[in-house]
């Protein structure tokens, strides 16, 4: 499984490498202030992001993201299971959920800055407020759609309470939950950057804004590049997680497709 994963990764890395090479060659003679040669950007990238700033900016960003994202996952799944397994509760809260989901979380940053200040708590709250929705709503869908025969199997074999949740509801809903978690992760990254751009002394978003304000354009680009790699690494890690958790699901689906 791991070998196949690495082989796939190699195939997928080929095109980005070709594009980078093209960009490198085409931008080599650029004199445009806003679009410096890639060589200059990479030089700054080496100096900044492979050095001190990795620890002073990338790590703090990562920690905020993880704190907010994992909290969103936990809350989203727990609330989603509660709402998904009680039809009456679901009818009562669904309109409210749809309303809150419709508010872009970025709109709450000014309010949160006033009430919570510039610290990490504000940024983590923003990440939770944005990332929780796809996780929550997909969990509700997943729990709602569990198989009735499996449900009866659990009932007749006396599988109840936490065991039912752990051995039946969670795995049965996991294909939906994972879709929600994947969406939540990209929303979380966006909100991490934006909240850091609004108000932070460190972090990727704050660094990019800092370089922009001081007209250090190659440095700013290197920050954008770092952010791209940051998101790419996270989505690779997520895919590995997905393979581990949903191995049974993909196996079953591939078999059905072949028939």
């Amino acid at each position, binding site marked *: 499984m791991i070998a196949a994963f690495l082989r796939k990764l190699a195939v997928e890395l080929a095109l980005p490498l070709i594009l980078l090479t093209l960009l490198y060659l085409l931008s080599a003679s650029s004199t445009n202030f806003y679009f410096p040669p890639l060589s200059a950007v990479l030089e700054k990238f080496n100096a900044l992001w492979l050095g001190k700033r990795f620890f002073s900016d990338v790590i703090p960003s990562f920690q905020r993201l993880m704190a907010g994202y994992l909290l969103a996952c936990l809350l989203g799944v727990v609330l989603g299971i509660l709402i998904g397994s009680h039809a009456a509760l679901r009818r009562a809260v669904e309109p409210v959920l749809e309303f809150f989901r419709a508010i872009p979380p970025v709109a709450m940053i000014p309010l949160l800055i006033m009430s919570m200040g510039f610290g990490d708590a504000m940024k983590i709250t923003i990440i939770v407020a944005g990332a929780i929705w796809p996780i929550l709503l997909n969990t509700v869908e997943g729990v709602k759609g569990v*198989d009735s*025969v*499996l449900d*009866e*199997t659990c*009932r*007749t*074999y*006396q*599988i*109840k309470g936490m*065991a039912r949740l752990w*051995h*039946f509801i969670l*795995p*049965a809903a*996991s294909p939906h939950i994972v879709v929600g978690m994947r969406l939540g992760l990209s929303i979380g990254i966006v909100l991490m950057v934006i909240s850091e751009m609004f108000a932070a002394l460190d972090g990727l978003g704050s660094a990019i804004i800092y370089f922009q304000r001081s007209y250090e354009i190659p440095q700013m680009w290197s920050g954008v590049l770092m952010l791209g790699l940051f998101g790419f690494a996270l989505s690779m890690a997520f895919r590995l997680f997905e393979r581990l958790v949903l191995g*049974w*699901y993909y*196996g*079953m689906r591939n*078999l059905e497709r072949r028939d």
Partner: protein
Amino acid sequence: MDDLAPVVSVDHLNKVYESKERRVEAIGDLSFDVRHGDFTCIVGPSGAGKTTLLKCLSGLLAPTRGSIRVNGHEVTSPPEEMAIVFQEYGRSLFPWKTVRENVELPLRERGIAKDKRRAMVDAALDAVALSDAGNSYPWQLSGGMQQRVAIARAVAYQPKVMVLDEPFAAVDAQTRADLEDLMLRLWSELDLTVIFVTHDIDEAVYLGQRVLVLSSSPTRILDDVRVDIPGPRTQAQTRIEPEFAALRTRVYRGIQAAKASKAPQG
């Protein structure tokens, strides 16, 4: 509890589905007993309320009137002494668990120690000839094998009564014959008490010691047939015995009569 007391006792069972628009009486009035060691087949035309009866038996549906007792206790929720094999094998096994884990889970929830559990799972998988498939996932197996996993899970559970709901309706004829023989073997070797619901008359007569013939709904018992074909039964021999032919004709006529007398639904 003495051996003569019924394991399952159905007493004037009646079930009415009521909604705003209509009132459907699925089960009229059903009474029967199943004793320890019995192999009882329940056969009826489609729409005979077989599924309703089964859901009431397994405590998944509350009767409107009458009562069901399993092992002396009135059924109000799924009884612990009963194991069920569903028709939809593909939907009754956990696809995220291996064959072993599927068989093991109910035992685990019962709090049986790990070593003992392992032995029970081994024995059950061995009984259905699936010892080599323990680490496969159910969806990697054929339909017949999946249903054997479900049977192994029921056997390992060591229930007082095992209930099967048209378990072989979705497999091909050859597999079906094999599974029927597997059931007969398990029944005689493991001293099981079996209630086997089917719409297939031959299957009912081939398997059962007793065949209950149900009417169309509202369901009553039309006929209670004792099957005295001496064992061991085999697919090749038993099905050409004159007794087999006579009994299957009797059950067949009963079901035809049930269909013909089917009251128009209001």
